[in-house]
C-alpha cells in the first residue's frame, strides 16, 4: 500500500545523465534483487512449498507407510466430517484458546503492575517471572507431570503440609482438573514473555502524558482507560496474534501431560492429527486434517490482521 511513495523521487529528474543512470539502475534492480532473495527463496521452496505440495497431494490419497499411495479423491475430507474425535478436538482447542488468552492477559497485567513499580526488588520479580519461559515446553510438561503425581509430586506434598488437603488431589483425574493443570503449566511457562512484552509497551508510553492527566485531575482508572490501553494497542495486537496462533497449535503440553485424556477430554487438533498419523497410521486422513487446520489458521490470521489494521486507523 505504501510502496507507491518510495520511488517518487525518480519522477523529477534534474539532470538527463542522472536520470539515465537511474533508469539503468532501476532496470538492473529486479535482477539483483532476485539474486539476493534467491537463497532464501530456495530454502522456502525446499523446506516449505514442496512439503506443502506433498501434504496437499497426500490429503487426496490413501497413503500407507510402505506401499504405494492410491488417490482416493475427497474421501479423506468427507471422513473428517464424521470423525467425532476431530470435531471434539476443534471444540476443545477453541475453548482452550479462549481461556488461555484471557487468563494469560489477566495474570500478565498483575505481574506488570508488580514488575513496573519503582519499588526495590522489582528487577528480581521481572527475572523470576521470566525464567520459566526459557525452559522447553516438553521439559516443563514433564516436570509438571511428575510434580502433579499423587505419590511422587511436590504439589500434593506442599498442599498436604500446608494443611489444605488430606488426600492427594489427583491433578489429572477428571477433565476439569486436567484442563486446570495444563492451564496452570502454560500460564507459569508463558506469562513471563507476555509480561516482558507488555512491560516494554507500558514503559514506552511517555510519562508526560500521565503527568498532564494528573494535572487535569484524571483518576487512575481514567489514566488506564485513556492513556495506557490506547498506548498499548499495537502490543496487545501482537500478543493476541501470538497467543491465539500458539494456542490453536498447542501440542507438547497435552501430549506429555495428559495424552489427550482423561477420556479424550483434552484432545487438541494437532494432537488428534498426530494420533491419526502416528498411532493409527492413517497418513492421508491426517494430511487432510493438516490442510483444514492450515486453511483455518490462514483465515483466522487474515481476520486478525484486518481488525488490527482498522484499529490502527
Amino acid at each position, binding site marked *: 500500500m505504501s510502496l507507491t511513495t518510495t520511488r517518487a523521487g525518480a519522477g523529477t529528474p534534474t539532470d538527463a545523465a542522472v536520470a539515465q543512470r537511474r533508469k539503468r539502475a532501476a532496470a538492473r534492480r529486479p535482477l539483483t534483487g532476485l539474486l539476493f532473495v534467491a537463497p532464501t527463496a530456495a530454502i522456502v521452496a525446499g523446506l516449505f512449498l514442496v512439503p506443502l505440495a506433498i501434504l496437499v497431494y497426500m490429503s487426496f490419497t490413501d497413503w*500407507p*507407510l*510402505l*506401499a504405494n499411495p492410491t488417490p482416493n479423491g475427497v474421501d479423506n475430507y468427507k471422513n473428517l466430517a464424521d470423525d467425532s*474425535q476431530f470435531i471434539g478436538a476443534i471444540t476443545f482447542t477453541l475453548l482452550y484458546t479462549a481461556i488461555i488468552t484471557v487468563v494469560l492477559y489477566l495474570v500478565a497485567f498483575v505481574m506488570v503492575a508488580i514488575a513496573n513499580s519503582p519499588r526495590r526488588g522489582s528487577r528480581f520479580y521481572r527475572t523470576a517471572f521470566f525464567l520459566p519461559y526459557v525452559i522447553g515446553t516438553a521439559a516443563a510438561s514433564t516436570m509438571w507431570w511428575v510434580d502433579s*503425581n*499423587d*505419590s*511422587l509430586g511436590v504439589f500434593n506434598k506442599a498442599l498436604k503440609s500446608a494443611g489444605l488437603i488430606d*488426600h*492427594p488431589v*489427583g*491433578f*489429572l*483425574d*477428571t477433565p476439569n482438573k486436567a484442563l486446570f493443570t495444563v492451564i496452570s503449566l502454560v500460564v507459569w511457562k508463558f506469562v513471563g514473555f507476555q509480561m516482558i512484552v507488555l512491560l516494554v509497551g507500558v514503559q514506552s508510553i511517555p510519562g508526560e502524558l500521565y503527568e498532564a492527566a494528573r494535572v487535569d485531575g484524571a483518576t487512575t482508572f481514567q489514566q488506564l482507560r485513556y492513556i495506557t490501553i490506547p498506548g498499548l494497542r499495537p502490543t496487545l495486537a501482537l500478543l493476541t496474534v501470538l497467543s491465539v496462533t500458539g494456542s490453536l497449535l498447542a501440542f507438547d503440553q497435552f501430549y506429555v501431560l495428559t*495424552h*489427550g*485424556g*482423561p*477420556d*479424550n477430554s483434552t*484432545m487438541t487438533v494437532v494432537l488428534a492429527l498426530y*494420533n491419526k*498419523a*502416528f*498411532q*493409527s*497410521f492413517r497418513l492421508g486422513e491426517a494430511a487432510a486434517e493438516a490442510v483444514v487446520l492450515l486453511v483455518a489458521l490462514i483465515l483466522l490470521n487474515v481476520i486478525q490482521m484486518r481488525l488490527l489494521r482498522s484499529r490502527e486507523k
Partner: protein
Amino acid sequence: MASGRRWRGPLSVAAVAALALSMAACGGSKSNTSTTSGNPDDGSQLTMWVRSATDQFSQRLVDAYNKSHKNKVALTIIPNDNYLTKVGAAAGSKSLPDILASDVVYTPNYTKQGLFKDITSDVKALPYFSNIAQSHITVASYQDKIYAVPHKLDSSVFFYNKDLFKKAGLDPEKPPANFADILDYARKITALGNGITGFDLAGSCGGCGVYTLFPYAWADGREILSDGGKKVDINNDSFKAIFKLYKQLSDEKLVDSSDKAQDGATWPANFLAGKVGMLPLGSPIVGDLLKQTKFQWGVTALMSPDGSKTSTFIGGDVAGISATSKHPAQAWDFLKWTLDENAQVEIIAKNGDLPGRTDLTGNKYTAADPRTKLIADGLKNGHTPFALPFGDLFNNPNGPWVATIRAALYGPDIDKALADGQAKIQAGLDAAN
C-alpha cells in the same frame, strides 16, 4: 568438463543406491535370504531398536554378543510410547535399523506392511524350531511366512506381598483363589493403614488392561478376539464380573489414589516399595523382585472370577531383520545366537526372565525357584491376542479400549460401558480388515 565432473558424483551415488535397493528387493523376494556361504561374524556394525520395556533385557543380550563376536550391535532404546511413531517415520524414509524388535501385539501391523524380511527358511532350519514359543511365531507370521523370532517372552501373573498378608492376619502361603478372595483380602490389607493398599490398578492404561484383565476372561472360557482378529467379544458376563470387582476395589479406595491417572508408567512402583498387597502384572518385574530384600513375595496365576481355571497373557517382543537391512546375514547371526541354549539359559533365565523356547523352561534357574517355575508352567494356558489394528484399538491412550475401561470403572453403568466399547472396538476391527 567441470559441470560433467560435478554431476558424476551424485549420479554414481544414485547408481550405487539403486543397486543396493534392487539387491535388497531381490533379497526380499527370495525365501532363503540371510544365510550366505561366508562366516557372518565378519565385524559388521549392526543397529538394533527395542522399546524401553525391554531395555535392560536387550542390553544384557547385546553386551554378551558384542563381547563374544566380531560383529558389533549398537542398541537404541526408544520410549514405549514413541516406538510406533519412530518406526513409522523410519519406515517411510527407509532408515530402519538392521534388527527391529516389536511388541508382539504390534507385530501383525509390521509384517503386513512389509517392514520385516522373510526369514522362514532360516527359522525352520533351526534344530529346535518346534520348541520356539509358538505364540510369538504365530504373531510374527503373515500368510504362512515367518518374519521374526521371540526376543523377549513375558507372561502376566498375580503377585502378592507375603509380609503384608501376615500383618493382615492372612495365610502368606495361600494366595487369593477367586474374585471374592481378592476383594476380601484387599479390604483386610487396606485396613492396615499407613498408606498401604490391598490392590493397585491402572485406570488410564490400555496395555495394562489387556495384559492383566484379558486372562481373567480367557480363564472363564472367552475368546475375546476371534476369527483372525476380525471379531471382538468383551460385552459378556466375564468382563462384567471383572469390572464389577475392579470398580468395587476403586470405589472402596482399596487401591492407590493414583489409579485414575495411572498410565502404566509408575504402576509397579508402589508394589515394589512394599506398599501394595496384591498386584496383577507380569514376569518382567520378577528380576526386580528377586533383587529386593524388603519383603517376601509370592505369585499365583490369574484366575477366572470363580477361580476354577487360570490363564495368562503371553506378551513380550519379537525381533526380525528389517526389509531394508544391508547386513541380513549378520543380523540373523545375532538373532540365532539369542535363541541358542547358552543365551536363553545363562543370560535370560538367570535373570528371572522366561526363556523363549519350551524345551528350556525346565532349566536350572527357572526350575530352582517355585515362583518362576509357576510362571513358566502357566504358559501352556496362555494366549496372545491377534488383531491388525491392536495398538490403535487397545494400547492407544485415546482409543476405545481405554475409554471402555474408564467408563466401566468410573462411570455409572458397567453394562452400558461394555456395550459401547464392544460396538466401538468392533467398528475399528471392521474398518481395518
